[in-house]
C-alpha cells in the first residue's frame, strides 16, 4: 500500500513537470493543463487511501469530503463566471486560498506534533511555511482589492515603517523563542506569528502602486509556492516539494521579467517609489498633428501591413472585441494585421494576450515586443490604442526622463503611427511622450471603443 502511494506521488510530480513543459506552445498547453490536473487528482485520492489503512474517525473524513466537494463546486463556478479583464483579481484570490491553506496547515500541525520529540529543523520549517502562507493570504487579498479598485495605495511613512518592524519581528521572535526566552507553548507561539504575518501581508502590499501590480502578483504567487515547498519538506512529501518549488520558480521568473520590462528594481517596486524627473520636468510645448477617423480608416485600408499596439486602456474601454472585428475587415482587404504586445500591457504577465485571444485573435498574430521591433520598418501603419509609456522614445534617448531605460516598442520606426487617445493626458509614469511630436505620428482623439467602432463602420463603406 505504501509503495502504491509513493509511486502515485511520483507520477503526480512528473505530471506537474510535464504539464508545465507542455505550456511552452499554445497548441499543447491545454493538454498540459489536463495532465497536471489529473496528476493532482491522483495525489489527493492516494492521500485519502492512506486514511483507509489507518483508522481515521468518520468525523474527520466527512468534514474533509464535504470541504472538498464545496471547494470544487465554488472553484468551478468562480472560474466560469470571471470576465477576462478580471483575471488578475481571480488569480490573486486563488493565490490567497493557497496561502491560507498553508497557514492553517501550520497551525493545526503545530498542535498535533509533540513539541518535545520534534526536531528543531522541522519546527523552523513549519514556522517558515506558516509565515509565508499568511503573508501570501492577506497580501493577495489586498492585491485583489487593489486590482478591483476598492483599496487605494497607501505610501505613508508609518505603513512602510510598521511593515519593516513586523518583518524584523518575524525573524527575531522565532530566534528568541528557540532560546527559551519566550515562555509560551509552541502552538500559542504559532498563533502569534500567524497574526503578525497576516498584518505584515497587508502592510507589504498597501504601498505598491497600481502600475506595479504585475510584479506583485507574480511575487505573491511565488511566495505561495515556497510555502507549499516548506510544508512538503516537513512531511517529506516529494509531490508537495516539487509542486511548490516549480510554482516558486515560475513566480520568481515572472517577477524578474516584469521588473525588467518596466526597468524598475524589485526593491523600488516594493517601496512604491518612482524615479523622479531630474531636471524638474522640462515641459516643452509639443506640436501635434490630429487625424480624423476617415483619414485613419483610409490609411489603414491602403496599407499592406498594419500593427496594433494595445495597452491596458484598450481593455478598460472593453474595445478588444471591436479590435478583433477591425482585424477581420482589414484581412478581407488583404491587409496583414499583427498585434505587438509589451510584456507589461495589462494587469498581470501576459494579460493582454488573453484579452485578445478572447476576442478571437489567433495567437499567430500576437507578436512579442522584440519580434515586433525587428520588423518595425515593414509596417505601413501602426495603431497605438490605450498605450503610452511603452511607446515613448524618451525611454531610449532622454536620460533625464523617468521612463529612461525601459524597453519600448519602437513604433516611431514604422512608416506611420496613429495614436488613439482620449485627451492629451499622460501615461502612468506621468511623463510627456516625445513620440507625439514626431513627423510620422498623428493623434486620433476620442474614446478608444467608439473611435474603433467608427473606423470599422467606415471601412465597411470603403
Amino acid at each position, binding site marked *: 500500500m505504501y509503495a502504491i502511494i509513493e509511486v502515485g506521488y511520483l507520477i503526480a510530480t512528473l505530471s506537474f513537470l510535464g504539464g508545465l513543459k507542455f505550456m511552452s506552445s499554445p497548441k499543447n498547453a491545454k493538454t498540459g493543463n489536463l495532465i497536471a490536473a489529473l496528476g493532482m487528482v491522483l495525489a489527493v485520492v492516494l492521500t485519502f487511501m492512506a486514511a483507509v489503512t489507518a483508522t481515521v474517525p468518520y468525523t474527520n473524513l466527512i468534514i474533509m469530503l464535504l470541504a472538498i466537494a464545496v*471547494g470544487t463546486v465554488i472553484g468551478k463556478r468562480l*472560474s466560469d463566471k470571471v470576465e477576462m479583464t478580471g483575471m488578475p483579481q481571480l*488569480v490573486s484570490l486563488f493565490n490567497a486560498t493557497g496561502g491560507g491553506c498553508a497557514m492553517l*496547515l501550520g497551525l493545526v500541525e503545530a498542535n498535533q506534533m509533540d513539541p518535545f520529540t520534534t526536531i528543531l529543523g522541522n519546527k523552523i520549517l513549519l514556522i517558515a511555511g506558516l509565515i509565508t502562507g499568511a503573508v501570501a493570504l492577506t497580501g493577495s487579498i489586498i492585491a485583489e482589492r487593489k486590482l478591483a479598485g476598492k483599496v487605494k495605495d497607501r505610501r505613508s511613512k508609518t505603513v512602510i515603517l510598521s511593515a519593516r518592524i513586523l518583518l524584523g519581528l518575524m525573524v527575531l521572535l522565532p530566534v528568541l523563542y528557540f532560546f527559551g526566552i519566550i515562555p509560551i507553548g509552541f502552538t500559542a507561539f504559532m498563533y502569534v506569528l500567524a497574526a503578525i504575518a497576516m498584518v505584515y501581508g497587508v502592510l507589504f502590499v498597501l504601498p505598491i502602486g497600481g502600475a506595479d501590480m504585475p510584479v506583485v502578483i507574480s511575487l505573491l504567487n511565488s511566495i505561495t509556492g515556497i510555502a507549499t515547498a516548506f510544508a512538503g*519538506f516537513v512531511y517529506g512529501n516529494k509531490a508537495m516539494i516539487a509542486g511548490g518549488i516549480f510554482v516558486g520558480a515560475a513566480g520568481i521568473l515572472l517577477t524578474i521579467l516584469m521588473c525588467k520590462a518596466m526597468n524598475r528594481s524589485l526593491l523600488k517596486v516594493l517601496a512604491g517609489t518612482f524615479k523622479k524627473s531630474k531636471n524638474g520636468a522640462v515641459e516643452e510645448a509639443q506640436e501635434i498633428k490630429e487625424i480624423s477617423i476617415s483619414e485613419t480608416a483610409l490609411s489603414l485600408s491602403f496599407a499592406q501591413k498594419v500593427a496594433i499596439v494595445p495597452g491596458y486602456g484598450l481593455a478598460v474601454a472593453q474595445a478588444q472585441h471591436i479590435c478583433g472585428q477591425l482585424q477581420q475587415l482589414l484581412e478581407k482587404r488583404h491587409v496583414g494585421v499583427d498585434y505587438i504586445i509589451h510584456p507589461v500591457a495589462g494587469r498581470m504577465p501576459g494579460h493582454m494576450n488573453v484579452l485578445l485571444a478572447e476576442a478571437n485573435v489567433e495567437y499567430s498574430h500576437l507578436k512579442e515586443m522584440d519580434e515586433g521591433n525587428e520588423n518595425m520598418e515593414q509596417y505601413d501603419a501602426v495603431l497605438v490604442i490605450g498605450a503610452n509609456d511603452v511607446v515613448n522614445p524618451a525611454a531610449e534617448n532622454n536620460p533625464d526622463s523617468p521612463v529612461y531605460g525601459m524597453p519600448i516598442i519602437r513604433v516611431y520606426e514604422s512608416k506611420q503611427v496613429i495614436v488613439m487617445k482620449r485627451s492629451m493626458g499622460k501615461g502612468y509614469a506621468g511623463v510627456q511622450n516625445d513620440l507625439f511630436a514626431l513627423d510620422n505620428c498623428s493623434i486620433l482623439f476620442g474614446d478608444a471603443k467608439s473611435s474603433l467602432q467608427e473606423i470599422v463602420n467606415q471601412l465597411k463603406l470603403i
Partner: protein
Amino acid sequence: MDFINQHIQEIYFVIFCVFIGIEVIANVPAILHTPLMSGANAISGVILVGAIIVMLRVPADDYLNLTLGGIAVFLGTLNISGGFFVTGRMLKMFSPKK
C-alpha cells in the same frame, strides 16, 4: 545535524527541482504567461495533500483543529479546482479555431 540526516534526500531533491523548474518555465512564451501563472497557482494547491495528512491525525473531539483543518482543506481544494478550471478556460481560447 539530526535535521540534515533526516532530510538529506529532500535537500538534493529541492536543488534539482529549482534548476529543472527554471529550465522548463523559461521556455514558456510571453503569450502564455497568464495561463502559466494561473496553472502554476493551481499546482501550488498541492498543499491540500498536506492539509489532508494533518486532518487524518486530528482527534475527532478536537473541534477547533477540525474546523481549522476543514477550512484548510476547503481553501486548498478551491485553489486547485478554480486554478485548473480557469486555466483550461483561458487555454481553450488559444486553441486554433475551426
